[in-house]
């Protein structure tokens, strides 16, 4: 099935690992270990994705065409040629945006119900 026929919402909700991988690849292509490091940084160590979870998720994301493998190496002289690099596809970007909008809706709802107490939007952004 081509991506034009698929709605990003069909794949929602995403698992935390898949969402974090999509976010890690948002600013460029990365290899497996680099994705793991980026996830540790962006979640401040709260989500630890091991190699098996990472590559299982990558397998499913490749099948769902959320990401794709790339042949190019950022610096071929320094890099191990056997490494595989992954990049976000357009459809993957749409799915990530849809998931973030869904999460944003939940946050707005929680705020409207005063579930977050005194926590303001800028506090969350600054965290």
């Amino acid at each position, binding site marked *: 099935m081509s991506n034009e026929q698929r709605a990003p919402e069909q794949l929602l909700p995403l*698992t935390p690992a898949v969402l974090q991988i999509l976010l890690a690849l948002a600013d460029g292509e990365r290899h*497996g*270990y680099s994705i*793991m490091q980026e996830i540790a940084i962006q979640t401040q160590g709260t989500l*630890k994705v*091991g*190699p*098996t*979870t*990472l*590559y*299982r998720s*990558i*397998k499913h994301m490749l099948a769902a065409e959320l990401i794709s493998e790339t042949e190019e190496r950022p610096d071929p002289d*320094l*890099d*191990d040629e*056997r*490494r*595989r690099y992954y990049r976000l596809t357009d459809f993957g970007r749409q799915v990530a945006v849809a998931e973030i909008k869904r999460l944003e809706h939940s946050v707005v709802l929680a705020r409207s119900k005063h579930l977050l107490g005194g926590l303001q939007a800028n506090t969350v952004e600054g965290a």
Partner: protein
Amino acid sequence: MLQKTSAPNSRLIILSAWLYSKLLYLGPAEFRRAYGRHMLQTVVMCWQEAYQRAGWCGVIILWPALFTELIEGLLAEHITVMCPPQKLGHVYIQSAALWCLFALGGLGSFVFARYPGLLPMSDTVTWYIYQCFRLLRMGGHIVFLFFLLCGLSFVVVAGKLIFAERRRDILEFLTATIGSALLGTLISFRFLGAYTTSELVGWCYSLLVVLCVLAISGVGICGALKCRKQAANMLFSTLFTISLYTVALGAALVATVGLMAWVGVQGAATVSGNDVGTFANIVIALLAVVAVGSLVFILRRGFSVLRLF
């Protein structure tokens, strides 16, 4: 893999990488071929970073988390490989075959329990035959425990997949397996009597041992005929189904025996035989409704699979 990195490669890292590469063989072959090398590469980089930070202690500390993550992930991958929607028909056929096997084992145990004269112990030859049967039954109990342990780990991982990844196919598979096991157990309890439980397990699993030996021989023959991969997949798929079926059977056995014991203590009913009290009968009837529902579900799916041919 380790040459182009600046981090040191201690013997511990090399040994750990070797061990990790061997552990990867526990996973499905396709997954290992596609991602095994990259997983190993990633994990070696993790160890190198840990070694630079905390020496050999860092490498050792990483092991428990990596090991559990690897085993859980590989089990999940096995379940994913075994339960794609197009393979569900095979799963139902396997489930039905196993149910027939259990019914056969239950019938055998019933006959031997009711008619002990079938195995006379008067002369030496029959005594030896009897001892062989006893050993086979004891072996059956050990195999039952083995499959129970394997199956429990599968169920835990399958449960996580159902909830975390919304895997409806795995849920269907578990329903079919648990439903058929529940029905088999209820039939054996209600019509064959509670005293046959141990016999039932012993005989059923000794039959499984024989079948496994035949299957392994089959794999050997297929290996000789150069279709080892298909044979290994078939064998693993069957072992996987048996493991899940065993968990369902174990749960049904524990629930029914526990219920009987509870009724025996709380009420005036006896635990032995079929006299387990009104309350137990009501609960057993309710469980039977669930089991029959599952069976109908299996048959309905079975017919839809048959229509495909």
